[in-house]
Each structure stands twice: as structure tokens, then as C-alpha cells.
């Protein structure tokens, strides 16, 4: 009886250690984006004592962590909280990203290599420096990103080298509204 108890405790300890490690790796390195919790920011703060978890989060997915000069945001749901789908059309709208380079991409969740991207080089901005981008399977006038042939979809926004870095600057991330579904 005693030997069974010891063995059971060791197995339970190992399982608990493994499961908590996977959970910690899954959640580290990500958090709600500042000012817009619909976006999730992927970030590694080198000054964080637990940065090893954040680094592990990206490396566990076979990915390099975002460089320090780059902001990396993802989302899996629209502004209403509905999961993003490849067969629906969406509008991304908001202030134009204040960065030297940026892109919006859409693809299957956790599969960045399959994503299709719309970059700063293609963007046509409105006179008031706002961005409107359609994500849909059917071509749309203006800025258009062809939605990939996927079920669940992830939208990613990457900004490299922000123009404005003063302390009072507040980052405003674009809204994402569903227009219709096929």
C-alpha cells in the first residue's frame, strides 16, 4: 500500500509539473493589446523575470519571438466576439498604422506560413489618414485582402518601427467588423 502511495504521488507530481508547464507556455508571451482587448499582443519583455516562459511560448510553436522594434498582434474574433471565418467578409478600419512598415495578414490559426498579407506598400489611405481594408473571398473595391480558403481564421497585424514613441502616445488598433457570410 505504501509503495503504491509513493508511486502514485510521483506520477501525480510529474503530471502536474508537465501540465502546468504547458499551460504556462501557452499563456506566456501573450496578453490583451493596450487599448483594445480584441487584439492579443505577442510580446517578450527581456526585463521580465519570467521571460523564459514568453520565449518558450514562441519557440514551442517553432517561431522566433517578435523583434523588440516590432509590435505583433493577432485576433481570432470580430468586434462582436464571433469567431473569424474564411467564408465571411470583414472590414478592418481605424487610424493608419503609425509605423515605417506594417501588414495585415489572414490565415489559419497558428499557421503563419499559410497566411496571405496586405502590406503598407499596397495601402491606399484616406485623406484623414485612416485605413479601410476589406478581407473577403470576393474582390472588393479599395484596399482588399483575399480571404484564404480556411474555416477558422486568424487576422494578424504587425507594425515595425513605430513613428511615435513619446510617453503620451496611445496606440489605437483598428476595429474589425463582420459584413456578411457566404
Amino acid at each position: 500500500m505504501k509503495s503504491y502511495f509513493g508511486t502514485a504521488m510521483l506520477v501525480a507530481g510529474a503530471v502536474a509539473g508537465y501540465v502546468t508547464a504547458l499551460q504556462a507556455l501557452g499563456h506566456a508571451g501573450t496578453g490583451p493589446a493596450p487599448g483594445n482587448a480584441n487584439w492579443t499582443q505577442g510580446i517578450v519583455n527581456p526585463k521580465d523575470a519570467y521571460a523564459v516562459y514568453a520565449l518558450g511560448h514562441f519557440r514551442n510553436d517553432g517561431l522566433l519571438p517578435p523583434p523588440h522594434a516590432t509590435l505583433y498582434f493577432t485576433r481570432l474574433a470580430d468586434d462582436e466576439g464571433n469567431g473569424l471565418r474564411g467564408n465571411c467578409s470583414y472590414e478592418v478600419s481605424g487610424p493608419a498604422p503609425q509605423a515605417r512598415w506594417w501588414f495585415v495578414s489572414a490565415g489559419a490559426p497558428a499557421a503563419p506560413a499559410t497566411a496571405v498579407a496586405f502590406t503598407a506598400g499596397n495601402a491606399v489611405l484616406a485623406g484623414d489618414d485612416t485605413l479601410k481594408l476589406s478581407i473577403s473571398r470576393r474582390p472588393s473595391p479599395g484596399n482588399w485582402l483575399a480571404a484564404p480558403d480556411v474555416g477558422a481564421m486568424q487576422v494578424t497585424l504587425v507594425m515595425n518601427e513605430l513613428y511615435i514613441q513619446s510617453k503620451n502616445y496611445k496606440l489605437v488598433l483598428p476595429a474589425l467588423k463582420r459584413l456578411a457570410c457566404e
Partner: protein
Amino acid sequence: MMGRMFWLFTAAVFGLAVHLATVLYFPGLTFQHRVKQLAGDAKDNSFFLMKPEVQAGLMPTATALDVVGLCLLNVSAGKVSLSARMPRGQWALTIYGASGEQVYNINDVEAGSGEFTIELAPAKGLIEQLRGRSDKDEVGQITNVGWHAELSEKRGLAVLWVPLADPARRADVETALSSTRCEKKP
């Protein structure tokens, strides 16, 4: 009662060991596997351009429209130099340590020139620092190599990234980046 307390304590310590091993070891294995998949038979300390269709699978902040080059750094046998002649426009060089931490970063604005050399060396250990021991080539001479960075581990990854506003520039950019040299210093 004491026996059960012993096993509870042992299980807690064992669980902590498993937790730390999983956090510290498994991500590195997964990452190395991915790099091997993408790098193919690329050797250490050699530069190569990634295939556009797979580069975002390693670098999620890049797209298939960008040009991305890699060098698998290995400073276990000494210093490594990376020399590049970058095309006009935006670019960034990021150097990662074996643990994935960013060691060094430079871009076109900071570099001020499209042509640069960066020397990568293994970081000095604590004992070497305390003894103040210098490398042979640092004694009595200053070599102008451009920039210098130290890797705290023996291995690392150098990533050259060039975003393309105009896809028609891809061939020119790839040609320019192909002349990048990443090699162990003699």
C-alpha cells in the same frame, strides 16, 4: 504520517523538476526541429535566403512578400563575422541567442550605410572576466570590424529581413543579399 509527508514533498520537488525541464528543454527541441526543417542542409556559419512560402513559419512578423536571410551561428570554435551589402530601403538585422532572446538588432537608419560587418563572439565567462583575460587579437591592436556583439551561448541565429513595397524589386534584393557572407573568422 511521516512517510506520507516524505512522498508529498518528494512529489512536489519532482513536479517542479518536470515543470522546469518542460519549460526549459522542450521549446528548444521544437524550435531546433523547425529550423532544421526550414534550413535543410545549410551548414553552421553560412548564409542562405529562405524560401518565401515558408519564411513566415519561422518569423511570424514577416510575410511571404518579404526577403528573409538566415545564418545559423556557431561561435564554439571562435568568432564569426557577418558581412552584408544591403540594398537601398528598409531592412533589419536581428541576432538571436540559442534561447531565443534578442541579442542584437540594427536597421538601415541606425546603420547609416548599406554595407556593414558585424563580429560575433562568445561572451566571456565569469572567470575570464574576473581574470581580465583578453583574446589574442585584442592584445595591442584594434581591428576595425564595424560592430561587435557577444552571444551568451555557443549557438544563435542571425536574421536579415527586407520588406518589399514593390514585388518587382525581389530579384534585385535577393541578388544583393546573396553576396552576404557569414563565416568563422580565421
